């Protein structure tokens, strides 16, 4: 690029930013829709730590012997919110049906006294939260083992425990990514990419279709300047978007963005560049704006899901967790976790920034190579 490039590049970028901010529907999608999504998802997924939450459990007691009652008390001690149905009662159905029902069968106490196996029947309704399933099974196991140990050892209450567990979180941040802490970074990463790829790509395709790209190419402008201007325009939109996310995260959802502003700024800048470059590349791949934004949204959704924007990456199979690093979203999410969850800084996200910059370079170079002013 030459000395006089900067004003040209800035003109193009400013024009793109102006066009985007004047378009009411892009305002909606870029700034308003993400927060509706964040609010809903955040509300639905918090609190998420079953050890801090009481899980609802309906216990159908087919007998009310002392041992059955002790089991129920043991379940309450394991943090279940227990509702009991006495013998002869029935479990509600339809909309009133409980998420989880445990049946203590008749003959429970006698079976144990006779040293016969006894099975408690656990049923989960179709709307039971799948995340709670494992916790419920572990807690049931603990309660029943404690009951049996109590029986075997002539008394075994939690106060008798020799071995205790002291749990804490690693890192400096002391924040668990539940609720808004999961959804805000994840949605920031996803919606920035959506805006860059759908609006960015479709804008290029539209400008090609209506002749503006041809006109720009006929202007005293180098291709590199045009590309840089288009990239900068997208980055500018994304910057405004990220700024709004950071502000709303801080003020309304009250999350902390970590302890390293420099790390955060660098990581987000690298990510925005990569998103803008991918959007530009998308615009060079499709002739029609509808196709560019349509295919773009599918690609973004896959990248967002794989990158851990929607759900905690650790629940995915190991190969999928590794595959996340094929996408810039995976690097961005991992970097944000370093900053927000681990309390890391510039050093910890240096590699992430470098890789994201490489994504930007690669996509940008390919876009520059493919960009044609006419279809």
């Amino acid at each position, binding site marked *: 690029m030459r000395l006089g490039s900067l004003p040209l590049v800035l003109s193009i970028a400013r024009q793109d930013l102006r066009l985007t901010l004047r378009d009411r529907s892009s305002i*909606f999608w870029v700034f308003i829709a993400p927060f509706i999504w964040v609010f809903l998802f955040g509300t639905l997924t918090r609190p998420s730590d079953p050890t801090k939450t009481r899980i609802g459990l309906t216990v159908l007691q087919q007998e009310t012997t002392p041992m059955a009652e002790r089991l129920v008390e043991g379940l309450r001690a394991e943090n279940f919110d227990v509702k009991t149905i006495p013998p002869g009662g029935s479990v509600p159905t339809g909309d009133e049906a409980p998420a989880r029902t445990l049946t203590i069968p008749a003959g429970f106490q006698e079976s144990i006294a006779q040293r016969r196996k*006894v099975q408690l029947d656990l049923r989960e309704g*179709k709307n039971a939260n799948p995340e709670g399933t494992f916790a419920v099974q572990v807690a049931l196991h603990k309660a029943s083992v404690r009951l049996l140990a109590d029986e075997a050892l002539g008394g075994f209450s939690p106060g*008798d425990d020799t*071995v205790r567990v002291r749990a804490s979180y690693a890192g400096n941040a002391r924040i668990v990514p539940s609720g808004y802490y999961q959804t805000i970074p994840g949605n920031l990463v996803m919606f920035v990419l959506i805006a860059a790829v759908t609006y960015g790509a479709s804008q290029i395709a539209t400008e090609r279709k209506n002749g503006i790209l041809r006109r720009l190419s006929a202007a005293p402008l180098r291709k590199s300047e045009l590309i840089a201007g288009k990239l900068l325009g997208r980055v500018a939109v994304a910057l405004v978007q990220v700024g709004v996310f950071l502000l709303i995260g801080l003020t309304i959802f009250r999350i902390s963005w970590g302890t390293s502003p420099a790390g955060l700024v660098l990581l987000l800048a690298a990510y925005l560049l990569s998103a803008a470059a991918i959007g530009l590349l998308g615009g060079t791949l499709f002739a029609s704006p509808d196709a560019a934004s349509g295919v773009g949204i599918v690609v973004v959704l896959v990248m967002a899901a794989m990158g851990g924007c929607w759900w*905690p990456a*650790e629940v995915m199979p190991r190969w999928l*967790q590794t595959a996340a690093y094929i996408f810039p979203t995976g690097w961005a999410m991992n970097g944000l976790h370093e900053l927000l969850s681990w309390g890391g800084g510039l050093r910890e996200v240096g590699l992430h920034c470098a890789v994201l910059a490489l994504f930007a370079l690669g996509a940008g170079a390919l876009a520059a190579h493919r960009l044609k002013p006419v279809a």
Partner: protein
Amino acid sequence: MKSILTLTAKDLRRRLASPAGLILSLTIPLAMGGMMLLAFGRMTGTGQRDVPQLRLVVVDQDESPISGIITGATQNPEAAERMHIERAASREEGERLLRDQDFAALLIIPKGFGEALLGSQQVELELVKNPAQRIMPVAAQQITEVMALYLSGAARLLGEDGLKIKQLFEGEGWQDTPALTSLVTVMRDRITSVSDLLFPPLIEVGTGGSESDEGSPGGFNFISWMYPGMIVMGLMFTGLDQMKDLLREREAGTLRRQLAAPVSARHVLIGKVLSVALVAAIAQIILVVIGSLVFRVSWGDPLALAAASGLIVLAVTGFAALLYSLVRTERQGDAFGGILTMVMAMLGGAFVPLQVMPEWLKSVSQLTVNHWCNEALRSLTSGGGWSEMAPYLGVLAGMGVVSTAAGVLLLHRRHMRGAL
């Protein structure tokens, strides 16, 4: 009537000649469903969701026979299926593994653990959880607490004889054969007294239903739960895209041309809405078939499925007609339609079960088309029939008729004002 059919046939022909938009509308929910399936729905042959493998780092600072038993137990074949355990030489190395290789938690067995356990003294296992993970560290904590429970029980069982065992581990007392024999006998008796209760535990927890049945009642089948939500979302995108064609035709001038022909505006609008319904019906068939063949969803009674599908198509068509009677431009339609579809999908229970929603959100959910569509289909995939589905069908029929009629009326009124 003839003109309505002519108009509808024209739109169907155009859509089939250029199916890219339809394919894209279907791709979004299939891609989302596919991703969710990859992430959550490990196919064990039943569609039941499997628990992800727990990755744990262990640092044994004690290096006693007792801590050796613990670390050995975590590496038996059964545990190895559920857990991936890595040994670290130090806390620092353990924390590095936690951070760099995405382990869920670091378990530190402190120095003196074995001695304290055998001496019935209170001792702590330290568990350092990965702060960047939400679910697996919690599972690690629960498993560790179970282990602590067993260890506490063992300590209780040993009682004062624990000290004698400690001396044996330290190499003392092996020569005192009578004492040793007495200790072994006591231990054997104690273990025997508890083994019939605890090894294995007499109380089992059964999860109900047959493991070989897909979508059977009483068990949570993730795919059968998830897929209906994806179908409904796909249909909504399809319906909206097809209805948007009204504005495309306005832009291209063909709408004006149709209105200048000897057909009433009402017929033009009805023809358009009918084409939306037909394209949505085609999409529904495709998604149901893919559900059966790829995701192995069981749909139950075909007649019930057909009835549910028909009313879902009607409801989705009505939503599209109503939305496009209210927006002015294609961009508005895209923006509002897109966000409404996604929000209603979420509120309707496509991504998160209704059970986890706060009460007020559950009420809001019932205002969405998605809620009723999802529940109708889920009642089929969970083995229900007409009686389970009936309440949902009634609401869907009402919603569909009212919204379709309102949409057509509003569009006609707009035409009369010259603003179509």
